[in-house]
């Protein structure tokens, strides 16, 4: 029975990867890889909101990154919103008070989405965007994003490619692999109009959508996911500008990574529960029949694979305990290294797993192509696969547990 379940999970995991690959082969010519600066037919007004909560250390760099944007200054405004910081963020903002391009606001602490909402309400521009204080934008990113709006009036939001800012240790290097892979998946979803999250770092929206569907709502600390669900529910098109890069500072320790992913997965579960009527609904397209179900499959798949791994590790150690009990420590604890092809596991499930890994590797190569311009396989793919397959199930299991017990996750 359990093996049938494993085969079903493996089948749908492969199905998801094939779906991405077929989409890539089908629509690869639509993917743009632009180099250098570009000129737009028109430059609409844009407001970028930077919600700040205790960002004294990163504020200046974030503002400098925004000021370096290749976009007409008179069409671009920055709102720095201090969300009741307890450090010197507000004092640091004062030096920008006289800058014509920058407006500063202070409010009681209410969460990132309330700072965003304040900015949206104050804005008068056609487009509004957000930039988290721990992210930096490529100068040409905004132009490239606006080009999507200019070429298709149905586009209501455009998300950028988020890549890792100067990875310093192994944890950040493996996240770089993951983020690049994410660029590929995001692009494929966008090509099918199935994006389910408009991430905090530099997603740009037509301001009119907030009048139609409302402002950001409190949504399990993943408000950027909820707004995307709501947009999809209202048949609003979300695009992905794969060549607009935003560099984000990723968690540098397993603990920080765990907390971040716990929040993301928990948010996905809770938002999907909130919008459960969108799953397998005839009213909605890819998000309903592919994006959300594949997210659920990835969660179930990771937990299943981890259970299998945990069982095998447990069995191995139990066996070693028996060995020591039977013959003492003098016995040969390590298995024989003598090679015989007969003992290579050729079970059908292993063959299926190999296929799945090959498809994942193809996705990683295509991710590198989109994020770095070259289809390559980084050496960090090995630790990425090894480490994530061990640690990811922990935050997934914890997120499932928290969702079941309605225990909330925290931002930090």
């Amino acid at each position, binding site marked *: 029975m359990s093996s049938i379940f494993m085969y079903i999970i493996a*089948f749908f995991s*492969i*199905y998801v990867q*094939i*779906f991405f690959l*077929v989409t890539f082969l*089908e629509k690869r010519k639509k993917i743009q890889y632009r180099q250098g600066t570009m000129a737009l037919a028109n430059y609409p007004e844009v407001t970028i909101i930077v919600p700040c909560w205790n960002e004294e250390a990163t504020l200046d760099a974030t503002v400098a990154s925004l000021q370096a944007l290749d976009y007409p200054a008179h069409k671009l405004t920055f709102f720095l919103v201090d969300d009741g910081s307890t450090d010197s963020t507000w004092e640091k903002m004062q030096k920008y008070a006289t800058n014509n391009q920058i407006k500063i606001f202070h409010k009681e602490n209410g969460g990132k989405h309330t700072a965003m909402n304040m900015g949206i309400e104050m804005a008068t521009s056609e487009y509004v965007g957000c930039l988290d204080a721990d992210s930096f934008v490529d100068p040409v990113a905004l132009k490239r994003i606006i080009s999507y709006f200019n070429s298709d009036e*149905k586009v209501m939001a455009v998300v950028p490619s988020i890549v890792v800012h100067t990875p310093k240790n192994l944890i950040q290097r493996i996240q770089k692999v993951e983020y690049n892979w994410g660029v590929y998946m995001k692009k494929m979803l966008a090509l099918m*109009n199935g994006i389910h999250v408009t991430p905090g770092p530099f997603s740009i929206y037509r301001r009119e959508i907030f009048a139609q569907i409302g402002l950001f709502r409190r949504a399990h600390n993943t408000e950027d996911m909820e707004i995307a669900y709501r947009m*999809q529910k209202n*048949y609003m*098109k979300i695009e992905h500008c794969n060549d607009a890069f935003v560099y984000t500072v990723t968690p540098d320790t397993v603990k920080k990574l765990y907390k971040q992913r716990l929040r993301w997965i928990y948010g996905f579960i809770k938002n999907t529960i909130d919008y459960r009527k969108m799953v397998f609904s*005839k*009213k*909605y*397209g*890819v*998000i*309903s*029949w592919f994006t959300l179900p594949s997210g659920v499959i990835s969660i179930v798949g990771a937990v299943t694979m981890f259970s299998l791994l945990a069982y095998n590790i447990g069995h191995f150690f139990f*066996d070693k305990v*028996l*060995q020591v*009990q*039977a*013959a*003492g420590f*003098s*016995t*040969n604890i390590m*298995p*024989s290294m003598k090679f015989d092809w*007969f*003992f290579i*596991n*050729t*079970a*059908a499930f*292993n*063959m*299926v797993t*190999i*296929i799945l890994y090959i498809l994942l590797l193809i996705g990683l190569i295509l991710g590198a192509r989109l994020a770095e311009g070259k289809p390559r396989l980084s050496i960090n793919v090995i630790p990425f696969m090894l480490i994530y397959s061990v640690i990811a199930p922990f935050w997934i299991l914890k997120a499932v547990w928290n969702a079941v017990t309605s225990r909330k996750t925290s931002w930090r």
Partner: protein
Amino acid sequence: MNKNVDWKKYVIVFIITLALFITAIIVSSSLNEKKFSSLKSIQDQIAVDLLSSEVQYSLLEEQSCSDVTNSVLSQELGNFADKIEYSENNNIGSTSDLTDLKKNYSLLEIKDYLLMKKVTKRCGIKSSFILYFYANSADCTDCTKQSYALTSLREKYPELRVYSFDYNLDLSAVRALIAIYKIPNNLPAIVIDEKTYAGFQDATTIEKIIGPALKPVEKKTTTKTKKSESVSVPATTTESQ
């Protein structure tokens, strides 16, 4: 806009996935068939060895003991046991085919046991024999422990000969052994030099029984004749050549 679902694509992807799945199953099945064929060829090799051992024993009656090799059956017998066990655990070959192989294996062991007893007696070779009866079921944890204990002893005492039998194997020769040595059904059980011991016996206990008859080897590179994880077809016979 969002309402359009490209069902054709969903079906095509399903067919591709199914094709990959079927390919994986066919490849797996083909490799497993090859493995099973290799098991059969090992069995043929052992049959030749058995014939050789019989001829050798006939010769023994006319020749001096110096012409007798210590190991009558080849190293292949241990390898054979490992592979049968692995096949059982990994569903290689049908249950009935594997049972047939196990029966052949058990018969070969009994042949070797009888022959070696005669050889050691006639030629005065120091050797100790252990018949080991186990249950081929996941809940016999003591059987797993027993096979570990015997494996470690065989590494320590090369002259020790261990013959393992599946207690539940439907083979008259094995049933005869069970009757002769009055093997109880609370397994594992071992017979050391004709005396039966029921239940798990650790390596130290067995060592005390066989110790006086055999001397341990100095630490050297011994060839393990079976996987230490063995449960179903534990220790087998073979000594260093």
